């Protein structure tokens, strides 16, 4: 089966810059996959997304969407993909509903109602408010709603959880899961490792314009993991801490448990946070 997005040896340098922003990037995304695009600020994630969505010209390499090179797609490309930008977007003087109505009518395949789209991102109550009056988190969710209006096959979410509270972060994760269940493909650029770990089928770490590692979150966590158990216990009334390797913690753990002085036990498997530090060589 042809990949939904196929990028080969992609390179791009912004005019007037000496170093390339994207430098020999190669990856492929299958239908129905949620693909996480992670990496430090300035690594070239947004630039890659701009190229795939046709906003940048003058790159080298090959980029195909649904088997067709992006140069060969006309404006129809934008019925097949939906893009949620990293910065807030919207007509300041229109209401939220008016803004979305405008965009939904520009697609020829808009099947999702505006009310329904707003409900899904939890903005139903501000439909009649001017876009300029929304809070930052609301505007990010408005971007999401706009990208999903025409129920595209491929969704590009650039930092969809930035500025969101935990409840809305969970809502975004549910939106992504729902899209996967419907067979849509999601290209998720994010700094939110917990969301990436919870939603992505595969993640790629971008460093200096190239992919430094890509795999399932689980495999990366295991590969870069330092699996251990951290135990807090009391000894002579004082709090003490022991860190035991997970594979070989049996006897020592049993001794502490039976002595009855344990306060907390945490298994500290590697999370994507640690993978990030390992792969990108940057500290958190």
């Amino acid at each position, binding site marked *: *089966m*042809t990949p939904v997005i196929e990028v080969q040896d992609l390179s791009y340098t*912004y*005019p*007037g810059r000496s170093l390339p922003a994207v430098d020999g990037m190669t990856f492929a995304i299958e*239908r129905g996959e949620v693909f996480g695009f992670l990496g430090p600020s300035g690594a070239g994630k947004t630039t890659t997304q*701009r190229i795939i*969505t*046709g*906003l*940048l010209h003058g790159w080298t390499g090959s980029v195909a969407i*649904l*088997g*067709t090179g992006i140069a060969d*797609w*006309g*404006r*129809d490309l*934008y*019925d*097949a*993909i*939906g*893009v949620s*930008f990293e*910065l*807030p*977007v*919207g*007509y*300041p*003087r*229109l209401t939220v509903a*008016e803004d979305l*109505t*405008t*965009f939904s*009518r*520009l*697609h*020829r*395949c*808009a*099947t999702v109602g505006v009310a329904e789209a707003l409900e899904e991102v939890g903005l139903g109550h501000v439909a009649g*408010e*001017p876009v*300029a*009056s*929304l*809070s930052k988190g609301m505007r990010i969710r408005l971007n999401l709603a*706009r*990208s999903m209006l*025409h*129920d595209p*096959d491929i969704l590009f979410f650039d930092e969809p959880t930035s500025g969101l509270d935990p409840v809305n972060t969970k809502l975004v994760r549910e939106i992504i899961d729902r899209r996967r269940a*419907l*067979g849509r493909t999601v290209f998720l650029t994010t700094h939110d490792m917990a969301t990436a770990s919870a939603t992505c089928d595969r993640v790629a770490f971008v460093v200096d314009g190239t992919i430094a590692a890509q795999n399932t979150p689980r495999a990366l966590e295991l590969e870069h993991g330092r699996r251990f158990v951290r135990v807090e216990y009391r000894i002579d009334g004082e709090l003490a801490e022991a860190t035991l390797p997970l594979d070989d913690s049996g006897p020592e753990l049993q001794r502490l448990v039976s002595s009855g002085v344990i306060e907390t036990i945490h298994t500290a498997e590697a999370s994507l946070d640690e993978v990030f530090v390992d792969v990108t060589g940057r500290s958190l």
Partner: protein
Amino acid sequence: MSAAPGGSDPLATRADVASTTGRVESSFAAMLRTEMRLFMRHGVVATAFVSTVAWAGVLAVVPHGVRVEVMAWVLFMDVAALGFFFIPALEAMERTSGVTAALMMTPLRRSTAVVVRVGLVAGLVVPCAAALAVVAGSTQVMNVAGAAAPLSVLFTLLGLAMMKNATTLTAYFGRVPGVAVPLLVPAIADGLRVLDSNWLVLSPATAGLRLVGGAGGLVEVAVLVLSIAALWVFVLRSGFDPVAATIGKQMRRKLLSAHGPAWRALMSADARTLAGDRILTLVLAGIPTLVLALWLGEGLLTSQLMDTYGVVLDRRLLWGFVLVAHTPIMVGSVCGLLLAEDRDAGLLPAFAVSNGGIRTLLVYRLSGAVVTTGLAVGLGLVLARFENWVGVAATAAAITPVPAMFIAAVARDRGQAVAVMKLMALPFYLPLIAWSVPHIWALGAVPTWWALRALWEPVPNPWWTLGGWIVAAAWTFVFVRRFERSLLVSGSSRSATRPSRRSLRGRSPVRSGQS
């Protein structure tokens, strides 16, 4: 729409869903509806209406013999040029709010968007032109209105072409003199019959002016149509590039965090913003160009007006208009526009919480504008050999903060800033009537009146300067206060879109506790 396009030929699969024409029609309708909302909410319709009513009033009082002639000038310089002012403002708003990039992520074609925009402006201009033609007693109302349509298309497309990749209005207006002078000078020379040459029609503005004046024929129509076609191609080929446009903004943000005294940081940020689009040079070059043109053409112009209309144009009236009234208003407007754009970019609250506070910004901006006006007016007066140039330049310079702060205080975004700029021109130029009726003391409320009187007085009299300073200072104070209060209110982004006037009036101690 979940039927995914097949990997082999996505275009064919998509084409099954709807015919191409069906989509064009519906996106056209969607854009039209949105555009009408934007026109209403950004004050385009209101401005067109108010200025038409105001011009109708002017036409009603000018002598019968010149009404049609005056109407042609009004249509040419103001009514048909509506899109030239407003469309760049809407474009700038869309570009900075990300809407342009979002529209590029839809199947909408740029040509559709441009057609809607240009067509709606023309649709607004035509009834205004027809109304003015009726008031002027023109015998060819249909012809005048019909000529106003292509003229407005020309001006709107010109505005779009000049926007190119700019994201700010100040950048746009900086480009205006460079294009307006070569385009308008032939038209004005032709319209006033200062020059008599068939070559003048090569400027599409000349062709347009002749047509709205009821003159002109096939050649004029051909020139206008060809120019529109050329601009159309240019506008579609040089579409906005949201990625390239972000580079300048990053530069500006970096500069604002520079160390050193506040005014130096502000100056380097402004200089980069302005110079990045060559505005400073162009604004500064635009005024001297006008002065120079007037200096060279003064004799020709006055004698021609005498011969053609039997009008005696005193040079003190002419220079008073260009130097004493127009110059401070233009410089002040650029300054006010800069503040309106800072407000749109969310920079004003950032200044307000910075060490210097918002007053540092105002002191720096306004004094820069005052000095610019003072120098320009002073040099112009010396060039025109006026004796009392120090006193007049000092009075004219003091006017500058008034239009600047008026725009900054009243306009809530740059679209409104343009509306305010257009509408305030009338009261600011009104004191010119003091030339024939010097004793309407109420005009003393307008600061330009004092500077004009200072210029026109046969004997230099410091009281005109002093009076002008007091009036200008009073208005500046009022508008600065209002500007500062508007910052407090728009601190919550919600009120940024709601009339701030109402919320300000409602701020009594009792009500402020509730919400």
